[in-house]
């Protein structure tokens, strides 16, 4: 019973990471119609920036520096390379972002080496909290709460601001976005930077829990894409539902039969694609993209 609770909490934390990456993927897709295979790289860059800052300056600054650095990188990437791929077919976008992911991963490997690294949280956050029958590391709970707050802010951004209007319109009606014209360039840059910053921040914050190596970005990206597909490409709540579902599924399978924990998410995705191709909460018109 205790193990079950542990696994469910673990699934929640893992699921929230997926949600955060998937939300970025989804708003970027919704606004820019860009399928971004390099999104995992944002996570990894954030994690390494966080690691360096945390070790040399302080953990607090890591949480500030990581999202900013990643957002800057993303804007640069967008201007230099990705812009010209917005109108291309999804396959071309997949290929170029896959290539960027490769380059980032290898650059990180050259700089930081291939070994797994981690930084430690300050003493105050290293304790455990007792929740009924189980004790759980305090930082993990804090992390989960932080991600939830961040997601709420993103949601408010989408629902309440003018830029968010463009995100919503982009998901539902491409034409309307084109009518909005000039605004869109600026908005798409902001959305791209925001999606990247979320991934970077989560990368930095999750490193004390999961540690980081150069391949981690890609390792988180693929399940996050599964999450997006399961939840429905372009849907915020789909990403939330899909992320939690996949996180829990993986964590619980790990408890029941560990070797299957990697494959179960693919099985889940295949079933969803066959039975409800637009995803659990997706809108059907997006599927042909």
């Amino acid at each position, binding site marked *: 019973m205790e193990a079950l609770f542990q696994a469910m909490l673990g699934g929640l934390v893992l699921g929230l990471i997926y949600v955060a990456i998937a939300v970025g993927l989804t708003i970027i897709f919704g606004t820019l119609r860009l399928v971004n295979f390099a999104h995992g790289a944002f996570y990894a860059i954030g994690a390494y920036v966080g690691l360096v800052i945390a070790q040399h300056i302080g953990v607090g600054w890591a949480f500030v520096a990581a999202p900013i650095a990643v957002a800057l990188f993303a804007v640069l990437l967008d201007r230099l390379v990705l812009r010209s791929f917005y109108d291309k077919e999804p396959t*071309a976008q997949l*290929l170029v972002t896959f290539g960027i992911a*490769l380059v980032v991963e290898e650059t990180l490997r*050259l700089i930081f080496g291939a070994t797994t690294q981690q930084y430690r949280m300050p003493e105050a956050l290293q304790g455990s909290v007792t929740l009924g029958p189980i004790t759980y590391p305090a930082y993990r709970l804090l992390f989960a709460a932080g991600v939830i707050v961040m997601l709420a802010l993103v949601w408010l951004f989408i629902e309440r601001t003018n830029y968010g209007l463009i995100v919503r319109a982009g998901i539902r009606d491409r034409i309307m976005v084109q009518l909005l014209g000039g605004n869109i360039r600026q908005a798409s840059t902001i959305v791209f930077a925001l999606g990247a910053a979320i991934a970077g921040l989560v990368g930095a914050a999750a490193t004390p829990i999961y540690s980081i190596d150069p391949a981690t970005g890609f390792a988180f990206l693929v399940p996050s894409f599964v999450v997006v597909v399961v939840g429905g*490409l372009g849907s915020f709540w789909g990403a939330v539902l899909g992320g939690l579902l996949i996180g829990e599924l993986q964590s619980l399978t790990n408890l029941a039969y560990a070797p299957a924990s990697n494959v179960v998410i693919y099985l889940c995705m295949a079933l969803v694609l066959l039975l409800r191709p637009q995803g659990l909460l997706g809108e059907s018109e997006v599927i042909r*993209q």
Partner: protein
Amino acid sequence: MTTSSETAPVAPARPGLLAADARFAVLCALGIAVFPFLLHPLGGYSTLATQIAIVSIASIGFNLLLGYAGSLSYGHAMFYGGGGYLAAILLLRVSPQHPNLWLCVIGATVGAAILAIVVGAVTVRLYGIYFALLTLAFAQMVYFIVEQAKDWTNGDDGLQALPNALLPMGPWNIDLTTHLPSIDLGPFGNLGELRLWYIFAGICLLLVLMLSRMLTRSQFGEVLGAIRENEQRSTLIGFNASAYRLAAFAISGALTGFSGALRGMFDGSVPVDSLSIDRSGSFVIYTIVGGVQTLFGPVAGTAVIMFLENVLSARTPAWRLIEGLIFVGVIVFLPRGLSTVLKQQRDKSPRGLFVRSLRLSTEEPDPLLKPSGEGHKGGPMSIIETFKLGKLFGRFAAVRDVDFRVDPGELRAVIGPNGAGKTTFFNLLSGTIAPSSGTVNYKGRDVSRTSGTARVHLGIAKAFQTASLYPDQTVRQNCRLAALARVQGSFALQVFRRSMRLDDVDNLAERAMSRLELTGVADTRAGDLSHGDKKRLDIAIALATQPQILLLDEPVAGMSKDEARKTEALIRKLSTEMTVLVIEHDMEMVMGISDSITVLHQGTVLATGTPAEIRDNPRVIEAYLGGHSEAELTHG
């Protein structure tokens, strides 16, 4: 289908065709023969040359799918690793005493093809990211199964130290590990470094290159290219796109499995890594770097990257970064790959476009097309009829309870304000979308569940509101594709016949062009046509499928007055030979050419009658006024 494809004399081979094939084969053979000696001074070793030759086969298979069918698979490792494991298991379980290479490799290839057909059956309906992820998912499942079936596969350790399989050839059992005679070649190494394996792998590669060339130049390859360029159009001229994509996937999977099996046999081991995501990714890299959609690109890319991996990796830790930078650089700056630097032309040259005998046939139109008095339950049989037809988009009813009937030979206009559901209604008739309720009968037969592709072959063709063409092909080629679908049916694995070498196809296409007065621009790229010519070409494409009923969605929209009148006259002429349904906002045309008019409003039929009746119908006038102000709102 028509039997004409069997009776049609296949045009005699162009003189020199065989010679060209032979020249190609000789050139490839020469290249393969010198390759290991060119590799030597660069620091490559003979094993690498053999591995490159073997893995190139998988890349060629991958390119057939990505380049010619347009599907990016991120799971090809399942075929590559799967082929390797199958071959190794056959080797270990079936004939451990007398290991037979043919048995292992051919068995594994067949196994990979079966796997591809099973996986393809569920994946080919998906596109882009969905296709990539679902193939990846299947590859992960295969990885998992292999990892778990430890008794057969040895789990994470893979199958190591496989016995050496011999190659039975007639009375001989050839041991491929035998070295060639030792001859010193100076800077190019020593012939004796090579084993017979290289010759065997080289022959396999040569055959696969020839196969790939044949496939891409065949009628099959042509249709595959058409589907990639415009799938919507292709299904609505009568090609079964899913079947074509599945066939391409199966061929691609089989070649990749073949390659994996050879690699396992050559290395004497099959690691579980051969099933990994990274493996799948490597085929993407090889193919893109070398040049997608080119014949030699995949081979060149495989050679370059495998060389980097094996030679550069010993010298610098940055080799993977270099590899990644090359990959991105190629995508951004050389979308067609490295091999196009050498050869400034892509493999897909405009072949099959040479014009031959333009016997414009003067056949009588199909008697079925004539309005006939053929009795059917008392009245003349309708050609197309709907009962309570409805279509819901979510909760919104775009078409509701439509009862509609057209007699053979009629010219019926369908009018209504913007958003009335006219296009949706046509889509229901043509089978592009399935109805939510009600039925569509064609010549008395319920076709509600018949696919759009099948309906084309029954004689229903459509021209789109926004012309749906093959922009990169000539006008003639556009029409030929449609004619080809009519002549050969919805699917044909025509891999031997050169594309478009059928007189019937030519005749149909030429006739369709001349009917729409497009013969003058026959050799223009469709994408370069004027708006009016595009709209007319769309109709010509529909016409080339030899329809009995032609659906035209706003054929003169956006045309100048003169052009509109010209097109109107063409349509009027067509309507003497077949049933025509036309959606149009141009009232002058509607009133001028139609036998009768149906008015749709908010998804339902508001009125049906002669032009005069409709003009005077007060409800129609009201709906139109309402509709116009609505239209002004949406367009203003």
